[in-house]
């Protein structure tokens, strides 16, 4: 969790909004309230961190509609859906699309705050991963295409001779590329090179 995280509440019912904001205030959690999905969309930007508490039923643009739009925009903001009686099929659909959770009205205290915390943690993690991935991607981006290929094969433990045969280049050329890779990635040993490969695979796979 970080200090910039906020809970964004989108619900057409004023009572629910007021109640949520007061409850969050008692645990020192900053929040922002929105009356409709369109209101939220109008202020949304990629840099928002925290989580979205979203009423599934709202006039004009429903919670599901908003979720769809956010996914299309590449948002990774975790969403907790607020559902009422009989909204389970909609909630299932929301989960299938990647919602963190759904909670049914009226809310149990721990349930609600716990789930908000979980969502915030997810947001935090996702954000960290994104940062790591960006770093890895930036690091690997300095390699040329051929150097990248050589890096992958060396880190996998392939012999220079095999790599040269597979890529249709001379063994000498492989050696030159390998020296360039180690220099560009700032590593001195093969073990360090292998570690970078494993880390990047883990992050990119997340």
């Amino acid at each position: 969790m970080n200090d910039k995280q906020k809970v964004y509440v989108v619900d057409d019912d004023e009572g629910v909004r007021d109640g949520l904001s007061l409850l969050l205030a008692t645990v020192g959690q900053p929040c922002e309230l929105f009356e409709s999905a369109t209101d939220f969309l109008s202020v949304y930007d990629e840099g928002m961190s925290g989580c979205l508490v979203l009423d599934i039923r709202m006039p004009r643009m429903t919670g599901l509609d908003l979720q769809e739009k956010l996914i299309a925009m590449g948002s990774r903001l975790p969403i907790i859906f607020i559902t009422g009686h009989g909204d389970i099929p909609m909630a299932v659909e929301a989960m299938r699309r990647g919602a963190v959770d759904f909670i049914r009205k009226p809310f149990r205290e721990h349930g609600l705050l716990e789930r908000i915390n979980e969502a915030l943690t997810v947001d935090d993690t996702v954000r960290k991963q994104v940062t790591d991935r960006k770093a890895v991607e930036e690091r690997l981006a300095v390699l040329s295409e051929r150097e990248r290929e050589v890096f992958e094969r060396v880190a996998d433990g392939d012999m220079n001779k095999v790599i040269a045969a597979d890529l249709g280049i001379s063994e000498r050329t492989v050696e030159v590329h390998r020296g360039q890779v180690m220099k560009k990635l700032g590593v001195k040993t093969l073990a360090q090179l292998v570690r970078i490969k494993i880390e990047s695979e883990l992050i990119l796979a997340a």
Partner: protein
Amino acid sequence: MKPSQQVRELAATVPGATTDELLHNLLANLAGLLGARRAYVTEVANGTARSVASWEDNHRGPVREYPINGTPCATVMQDGVQVVDCELADRYILGESSIGYGCESFVGSPIVDHNGDRIGQLCVFGARPLADSDMAAALVSLAAVRVSAELEHRKHEAALERSEAYSRAIVATAAEGVLTVDSAGRIESFNQAAEKMFGYRADEVIGKDVHVLIPEQYRNTHVSYVDRFFTTGEASIIGTGREVTAQHKDGSVFPIHLAASEVSLNGERCFAGIIRDVSAQKAAEASLKATERRFRAVFDQRLQLVAILSPAGIVLEANQRSLDFTGLQHDEVVGHEFWRTPWWSHSPELQQRIKEATQAAAQGVTSRFEVTKPRVDAALAILDFSVRPIMDKAGQVVFLLCESHDITEHKQAEEEARHHRERIAHVSRLSTLGEMAAGIAHEINQPLTAISLFAQAGKRLVEAGQFEKMDEVCFKLNEHALRAAEVVERMQSMARQGESRKEIVDCNELIESAVRLAESEARIHDIQIEFGKGNNLPPVSVDGVQIQQVALNLLRNGMEAMIEADERKGCPIRITTSLNDESEIEVTVTDCGGGVPESRIDKLFTPFSTTKKSGMGMGLSISQAIIRAHGGRIGFNNNDACGARFWFALPAAKHGSHNER
């Protein structure tokens, strides 16, 4: 001239051939004897004298007519003979137009009729003072007596003349046959009507025995009557009359009414008979009796209870059914004031109402209303009662006709139908509520969620010792609890079962409440409901729940049509209230769904006809039953643009009507 001579001369007045001549001769003589300028015989009536004869300046004068007030003539009428021997103008103020103007003396004497009443006077005005006033008075009095006698005589004669002419005319032209029979039984006279009746000419029967007019089998009876009359003086027919049988010349017999009287003429007795042919009357009587019997049969056997009253409200006749209905005798009602009869004695209010209606009918106003009336078993029946005036050709109310018929069973059936309708309406409301459960649950869940959130926040604030916000928290808790209660209340009132109760209510309030209920469902389907409230609507007298049910039905139907047509995004359903051209309160629901397909229109209000997947297809048929039971109308039309427009109209509450079933 000596007095004795004067008297003789006056007495010698030649009686004229006519009264007129006699009077003028008399006046001329008097005027001459007294040296008078003017003399009159007047008849006085109502303070006005009118001359019958007048003599002025030695000639016949014109007819004079003058008011006697203020003249010496008035004194004569009041006190009798009056003499003013000189200076008439000093004693009476006589104007220029007055009859005695410019005269010096006056002598007047009243003329009396056979009762001694003063009917006029004989008066003489002289140009000079009277030489001998006593003599003048005597002469005038004498002449007045003569005039009185003459006038009386003339009156009798005129009366006699009139009466003779009358009797001649009567006998000749009488519709009755008149014949006279002498003591020997021979016909002496036979008038025109008798000729016509019997077919004989007068000359054929005069002198013949009266028996020619009597059928053979009755002749002996007649003889015995006549004999008995002569021997005992006892008459069964003289002076009275009876119906007997007569014989025509052609031998046929016919009924006559015969009135006979005995006349003694020069010591000899004879009989006059006045005969009326009563065959037509008999036939009419027989036909009238038959008609009456028929009428009576119809009157008594009618299913309706009928009574005929005089305009004053006295019962003249009541049919058998009306008596049997309550188990009354004829004389318990006939002859009594209608409203005091035992029919109404169970309710003083009803008596008063019947009395007022009866009096109104006598003024030409028909009334009709429901009454109760005891049956033979003392149970009260409900009747449709009316009282109306029957008028003659002149528009005069001649009697009042009261009719009532038993509608107890009809009322019971009506009551059962009402119960039935109410039960179905209730079941339908429950089913509607069931269908709306999701929406209603959502509607209740919202405030409950808020309450739960505020309660949790409150708890944390208390734990943290931050009490300053608790006031607001509690306020919010209460606010949202009430919000939830409102939803429950609306639902509860729809679920209510019980007697239909009509109340005077504002239609906008009813519709508002139905709209709120429908909104719970509208929100789920993301449909907006627009409510266009009409201004200054008169109140309606309705069962509020039922009218809400109708409005809710129409709103839900419209919404479903919109969902089906997938036309809801941004397009509202509209409900409006207004006062239409017929002064009814009209509620209209306009949707933008697919409209009603042509093929469905006929069956729209038919029970169990539905296109929906859920529901019984009862909504519109119940709505129709409810609106009709409220005396209103319901209908629909497809919109030009899109969707359908359903409406219902209710009559405005009558001024002064209140909580009635």
